[in-house]
């Protein structure tokens, strides 16, 4: 944070300017019962040197992915970020979180967003992408609002239980006062059974939402699910992992109508737990229903290529209550980073990144299954994340393993009571064999005594 001056003379200058004689007079209109009548209890002021020391002490308490080997996933991943991403995003012309208010005056930003949209379309195989949304969870929720405006006559929203639990919470919040009926489809075997979907579908089904790969890391039978959904006239919404598209089929190829994602993986660091970047893309016939900003390419009066905001007549500042959305905050800076990341890697780089994740995740899964009492929880193909069943309590183990230098994974019991002894691990291209073997050794030691004792 920048240094903000607030000395006695500064205060006096401000008070003089607005015509108040004292701070007391400035606050006089606040009813006495609302006023704090004692000094605020904060420690005495520190000098700048002391303050910097204090802040770095506080920062040391945090164990970031740089301080411990990170196998955490569930939407936020420790992928490698090439230096070029920081170099481009850090340029002063770009370095703001906001879409410019006089958009067309900022041709550089609009060009960058246009390129982001183009890259997202190429990545997903969808026709149209917007200039980003708030995060992965709100992108899922916005996709339901979008489905509702495409087909206002239907009400049932089917969501697989294997979709990120926090995305589903966001969805519940959004739907609280809507006409929709949310239905969660159980996934006891770690994926949505196509037969179960078939039974749940009816002519009132607005949309089906799946995540692929899903929250447990497992692949869903997306082609089959899309077909079943479309047979009854539903819209198929998929939440995807951008990195997985280096080797998995693209949503546009298996029949997704709306494709959404958390875009953190694309060149954005794991910071402050999000929000990161909401990705949204759709088929061309729904272009008038997609929320948020769309940047289009055109020519100026001199015939030169330029960029403009497109279909703005549907945006909140023009159409208020009839806008496609009034809560579709975008993430300009993270979208820019994602564009720089995708451009730097290219299709070949993304493919290599994805295959490294896949191979390393499978290596680690093999190693962990050697530990007595540890097994893969679900018998399904997986990409870079997988779920293991452990012989004992997870939370205490996580604390002990962290002391040995490993963020071992996510405790699934936090969201799924039936998965109390389950841990989800994510393996990115950054993990080395040594790190993975190290985790396996630490976990072996963790359960060894216990198994013998039992």
């Amino acid at each position, binding site marked *: 944070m920048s240094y903000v001056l607030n000395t006695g003379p500064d205060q006096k200058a401000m008070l003089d300017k607005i015509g108040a004689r004292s701070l007391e007079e400035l606050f006089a209109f606040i009813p006495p019962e609302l006023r704090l009548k004692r000094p605020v209890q904060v420690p005495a002021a520190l000098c700048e040197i002391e303050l910097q020391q204090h802040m770095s002490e506080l920062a040391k308490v945090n164990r970031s992915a740089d301080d411990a080997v990170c196998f955490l996933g569930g939407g936020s991943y420790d992928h490698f970020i090439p230096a070029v991403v920081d170099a481009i995003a850090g340029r002063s012309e770009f370095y703001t979180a906001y879409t410019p208010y006089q958009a067309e005056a900022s041709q550089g930003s609009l060009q960058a967003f246009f390129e982001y949209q183009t890259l997202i379309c190429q990545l997903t195989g969808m026709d149209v992408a917007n200039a980003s949304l708030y995060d992965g969870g709100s992108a899922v929720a916005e996709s339901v609002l979008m489905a509702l405006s495409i087909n206002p006559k239907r009400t049932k929203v089917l969501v697989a239980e294997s979709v990120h639990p926090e995305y589903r919470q966001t969805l519940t919040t959004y739907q609280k006062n809507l006409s929709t009926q949310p239905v969660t489809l159980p996934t006891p075997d770690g994926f949505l059974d196509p037969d179960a979907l078939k039974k749940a579908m009816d002519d009132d089904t607005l949309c089906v939402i799946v995540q692929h790969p899903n929250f447990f890391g497992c692949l869903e039978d997306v082609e089959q699910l899309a077909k079943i959904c479309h047979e009854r006239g539903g819209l198929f919404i998929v939440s995807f992992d951008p990195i997985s598209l280096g080797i998995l089929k693209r949503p546009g190829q298996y029949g997704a109508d709306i494709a959404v994602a958390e875009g953190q993986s694309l060149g954005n660091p794991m910071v402050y737990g999000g929000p990161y970047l909401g990705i949204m893309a759709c088929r061309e016939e729904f272009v*008038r229903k997609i929320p948020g900003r769309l940047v289009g390419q055109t020519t100026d009066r001199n015939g030169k290529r330029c960029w403009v905001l497109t279909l703005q*007549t*549907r945006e909140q500042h*023009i*159409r208020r209550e*009839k806008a496609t959305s009034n809560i579709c905050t975008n993430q300009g800076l993270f979208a820019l980073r994602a564009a720089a990341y995708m451009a730097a890697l290219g299709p070949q780089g993304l493919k290599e990144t994805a295959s490294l994740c896949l191979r390393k995740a499978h290596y680690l899964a093999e190693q962990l299954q050697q530990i007595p009492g540890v097994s893969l929880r679900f018998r399904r193909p997986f990409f870079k994340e997988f779920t293991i069943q452990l012989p004992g309590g997870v939370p205490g183990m996580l604390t002990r393993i962290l002391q040995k230098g490993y963020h071992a994974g996510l405790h699934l019991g936090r969201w799924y009571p039936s998965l109390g002894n389950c841990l989800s691990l994510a393996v990115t291209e950054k993990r080395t064999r040594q790190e993975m073997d190290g985790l396996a050794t630490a976990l072996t030691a963790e359960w060894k005594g216990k198994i013998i004792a039992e």
Partner: protein
Amino acid sequence: MDLKKLRYAPTHEWAILEGDTCTVGITKYAVEQLTDVVYIELPDVGDNVFAGDSFGEIESVKAVSDLYSPVNGEIIAINEPLISDPSAITKDPYGKGWMIKIKAERGSNLNKMLSLEQYEKQIASDNH
């Protein structure tokens, strides 16, 4: 089309009731205000519409506007070709640019709508 036979809404729709069939479009003045019409969204045949409620929307390069129904009833026809090419709305708003036909509820009438003379007065005062 004899414009005197039509009735007009302050929201710039025109309507005519023949038997129980009510045909609706938008006026030449509305078209001129919208400028280039790029897109129209119409209801499905079989949908119910209600007097004063929106039955669809029209988009120009300048704005998106709702289209309002003059009567309660059921949609019995929509002008399908407009969906792929809405230019007929601009070229022939009272003929080929018609939008929907409604089977009006029994006892419906257009008495609350404006006559051509009243509508022209409204436009004139809007422009001052």
